[in-house]
């Protein structure tokens, strides 16, 4: 029995010739780094659970993708993250929604799975759980990158475009 790892960095309207070269290169570099992080664990006989967490953490740190550091802004100019993780062995699962201050939301989801009686924690409660359980904290400035701010400003400049109708960035 061998091992396999797959990753994604989001689906969307990326078309050849329209994606800036720098964005193309940044995306491919980020995907390669995430694959290597997970494959290194699997190659050593590690678990699928550890491998998917490691790969997603790399993508969470990469501003090229919409998660963690590359997160988008809410209407109010805040960063809120969601994450989930699930173990096929026993269908144990952990998830967080609307968290604002944990550097790696996927690791917080795993902490919920491993060290709480719950599956899904949200918002201020999940932020408090993160602090109490010693996860690495990050302030809003860590997550806020200029291109995402520009995208928010662009969307807010279109008063007719309700936040979901465009589904333009995310």
């Amino acid at each position: 029995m061998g091992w396999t790892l797959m990753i994604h960095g989001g689906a969307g309207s990326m078309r050849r010739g329209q994606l800036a070269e720098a964005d193309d290169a940044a995306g491919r570099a980020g995907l390669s780094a995430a694959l290597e992080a997970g494959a290194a664990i699997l190659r050593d006989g590690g678990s699928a659970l550890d491998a998917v967490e490691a790969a997603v953490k790399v993508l969470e740190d990469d501003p090229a993708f919409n998660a963690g550091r590359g997160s988008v802004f809410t209407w109010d100019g805040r960063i809120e993250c969601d994450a989930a993780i699930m173990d096929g062995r026993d269908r144990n699962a952990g998830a967080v929604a609307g968290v604002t201050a944990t550097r790696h939301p996927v690791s917080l989801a795993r902490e919920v799975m491993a060290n709480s009686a719950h599956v899904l924690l949200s918002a201020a409660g999940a932020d408090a759980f993160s602090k109490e359980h010693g996860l690495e904290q990050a302030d809003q400035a860590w997550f806020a990158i200029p291109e995402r701010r520009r995208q928010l400003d662009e969307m807010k400049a279109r008063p007719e475009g309700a936040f979901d109708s465009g589904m333009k960035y995310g």
Partner: protein
Amino acid sequence: TVGAVAVDEAGHVAAATSTGGLTAKRWGRIGDSPLIGAGTYADDRAAAISCTGSGEHFIRLGLAHELCARLRLCGDELSIVEQDLIAELGRIGGKGGFIAVTPEGDARWAFNTPGMYRGRVSHDLEAQIAIFGDE
């Protein structure tokens, strides 16, 4: 949104998804990523799956759990189920895609958008990276 699915040497599967959501989201909107069974699911009896796209549609279809249930209860091949579910997603107006791997190592991605940031690597397959739909 980012995600990963894996099967390890012991044949166990796992899935993880993480997202910043939608730009300019309001009213506490939450998409499919953190909802177990919608955007993320893993079951050694079926597969591990991580989704990305218009979250409301993945929630309505319970897409991640639906894929695992089809494999487990109908015994369908992943190649069939993935196409059925992408078609179903499109029928209700949804956009996006997913990655999935079975305990036997059948690993596939499917999407109905022009592109998807994606990659895969195996014990016997060099790393593959792709962005555009025609790669």
